[in-house]
């Protein structure tokens, strides 16, 4: 040691700078940064040169041009009011973004609910529940997602009746007819006075929240409990229903209508046109009611069922990660099993569950790009598929798409990080 110190003191300033860990670190950082920047500059320059030499267009001017193709009716086309031959490529882009967000949103909700249920079942003392959950998890997570998507799509198609009939009717009053072209739902028409019902609902929510907050305060101060959940539920349902009744029911449901072969065809005013429906005319009458397409249903089923299998394992791991002493301690304090689960086990398990759960949400979002296989018009299908083939500007369009997935994923991750921070144990 002594000799080393001696040799260091003899060195010039430059050598000692090289031995200084801070300076050395900085040097390598700068070298790396230069290399990375140079690499990307080289790629960019190469790309521009090659594109120019191939005579390809570049830039984002294509977004304003009219796209000439029709897109399957989905929430995206509904929101963007897209019509074939009028919609621009930018509209197509937004339709894709909306459809991707919609499938991800509903997929995440269903996968989370089912995943938590299956995860808890896997730890159940009931052999049948436990066995079923184990079977579910082992089957679904071990089959490739694309195959599952095809399976559900063709199961949905083959199981449903022909489009010439209103088909099977779901719902208590048969208000959800379903055939091979989709699940038909009544379209709500909001009449005058409906906004006051909405405001009443918001007020009821605030009231319920206030009661639960006061009840919590009181419990902390005096230890007396109050059934705030049930009271809140009553307030949130009863008060808006009363308002709805008072306003004279300001909501009409426009049901989807169907023609059978031989039914008279009506014109726009509901007058008979004197013609009867031939086989091609039979089926759903466009423009009335709403429809959920089988492509959406199949993709949603496949994504939710597949991801739920992974979430179930995460939930199981999370619950098992809570030491058994916690349950025993709660029991010793005379706390009931359901409150032990809600107030002792789950809050601690959530710390373990949330980070991997976030990855599953991100996976589901990215997996939704498999939609193209079964004709659901998500971003990859219509923008990177159809639109890219018409426009041919891979770099710009793939870049836009990558940005969308990046923003969706970062947004989900940011939300989950916030949620995670809230769920962390408060250490005192």
């Amino acid at each position: 040691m002594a000799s080393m110190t001696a040799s260091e003191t003899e060195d010039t300033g430059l050598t000692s700078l090289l031995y200084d860990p801070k300076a050395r670190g900085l040097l390598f950082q700068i070298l790396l940064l230069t290399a990375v920047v140079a690499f990307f500059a080289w790629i960019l320059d190469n790309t521009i040169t090659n594109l120019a030499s191939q005579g390809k267009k570049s830039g984002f001017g294509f977004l304003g041009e009219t796209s000439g193709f029709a897109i399957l009716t989905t929430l995206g086309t509904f929101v963007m009011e897209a019509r074939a031959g009028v919609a621009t490529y930018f509209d197509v882009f937004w339709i894709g973004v909306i459809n991707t967000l919609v499938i991800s949103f509903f997929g995440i909700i269903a996968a989370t609910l089912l995943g938590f249920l299956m995860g808890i079942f896997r730890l159940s003392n009931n052999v049948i529940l436990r066995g079923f959950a184990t079977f579910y998890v082992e089957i679904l997570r071990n089959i490739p997602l694309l195959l599952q998507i095809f399976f559900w799509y063709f199961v949905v198609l083959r199981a449903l009746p022909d489009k010439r009939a209103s088909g099977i009717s779901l719902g208590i009053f048969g208000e959800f007819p379903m055939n091979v072209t989709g699940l038909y739902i009544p379209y709500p028409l909001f009449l005058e006075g409906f906004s006051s019902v909405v405001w009443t609902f918001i007020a009821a929510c605030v009231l319920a929240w206030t009661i639960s907050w006061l009840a919590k305060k009181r419990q902390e101060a005096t230890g007396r409990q109050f059934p705030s959940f049930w009271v809140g539920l009553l307030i949130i349902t009863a008060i808006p229903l009363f308002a709805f009744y008072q306003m004279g029911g300001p909501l009409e449901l426009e049901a989807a209508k169907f023609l059978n072969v031989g039914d008279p065809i009506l014109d726009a005013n509901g007058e008979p046109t004197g013609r009867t429906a031939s086989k091609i005319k039979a089926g759903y009458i466009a423009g009335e009611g709403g429809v959920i397409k089988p492509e959406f249903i199949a993709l949603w089923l496949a994504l939710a069922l597949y991801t739920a299998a992974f979430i179930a394992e995460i939930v199981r791991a999370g619950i098992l990660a809570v030491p058994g002493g916690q349950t025993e301690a709660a029991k010793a304090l005379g706390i009931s099993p359901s409150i032990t689960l809600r107030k002792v086990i789950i809050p601690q398990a959530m710390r373990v569950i949330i980070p991997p759960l976030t990855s599953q949400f991100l996976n589901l979002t990215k997996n939704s790009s498999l939609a193209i296989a079964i004709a659901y018009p998500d971003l990859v299908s219509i923008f990177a598929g159809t639109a890219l083939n018409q426009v041919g500007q891979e770099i710009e369009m793939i870049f836009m798409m990558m940005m969308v997935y990046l923003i969706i994923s970062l947004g989900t991750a940011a939300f989950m990080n916030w949620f995670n921070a809230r769920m962390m144990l408060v250490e005192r």
Partner: protein
Amino acid sequence: MTFKYALGALSAIGLALGAGTASADTLADVKAKGSVQCGVSQGLPGFSNQDDSGNWTGIDVDVCKAVAAAVFGDANAVKFTPLSAKERFTALSSGEVDILSRNTTWTMTRDTQLGLNFAGVNYYDGQGMMVPAGLGVTSALELDGASICTNTGTTTELNITDFFRANKMGFELVAFEKADEVVAAYDAGRCDVYTTDRSGLAAQRLKLADPAAHIVLPEVISKEPLGPVVRQGDDVWFNIVRWTLNAMINAEELGVTSGNAAAMASSDNPGIKRLLGTEGNFGEALGLSNDWAMQVISQVGNYGESYEAHVGANTPLKLNRSGSVNALWTNGGLIYAAPIR
């Protein structure tokens, strides 16, 4: 498909890194590799399809084999890359394939904006519609409100949209990535109509549960000249592909077949002598050997032989050639090649 989107990104990078070398001198690259990389479909009987033993066959495959025969004197010096409709142009412009011979329609947009060149037409097609016979429809004009299944990333989506808009009819378009799913969904009753090129309808109906229960409507709603495609900006390679196709067509016109090509080389007809390389230096002008067309015809055959072997009346596709637009121009069709002189 997640990996498709990764593939797209990779191709974009590939375009950045590789295209500079790939597009400049394709012939030299091909010679260095020892084989022609040919982009084909993922399975369209008659055009490009794998048989039971895994060999690619079809009239589009024959174009690639002919180019390999012209360049190397060996029709088997070809490697095939199956491409979906939406991958094909990216694969070509990134240099992943040297020729795209995948029932691709020649349109102005593709020719002028995608950085591609169409080297000719090897099949004149048109878009048609197939419906179940039980639907009771005899004309496409009765299809108001129909659900239509098709492939994504093709001109068929545009044509069908144009047709229904022009006739003020409503419709629903269900666009799948791969033809197999289109057929399966149509067979399952998801759609009333299956639309694609008429040659494609003839090929894909063989995959239906009951091919006889479906009819092709009489309307042809588009012009679909199909042909091989190369990258723009490499005229040497473009000329090789164009003149290989022309040689096959000229051979048919001159009566040269794979069977008699060797004997015809000593023919007195100067046209045949120029084609087969016993007169003039046409092969060298292309950067090839003078017997280039001889190799093409003796190993792959002339255009008519290729047609009859893969899509003609005696194949499952039963696309009768006589009287159709795909007959030789001397028989009233559109198949015509510039002369070799």
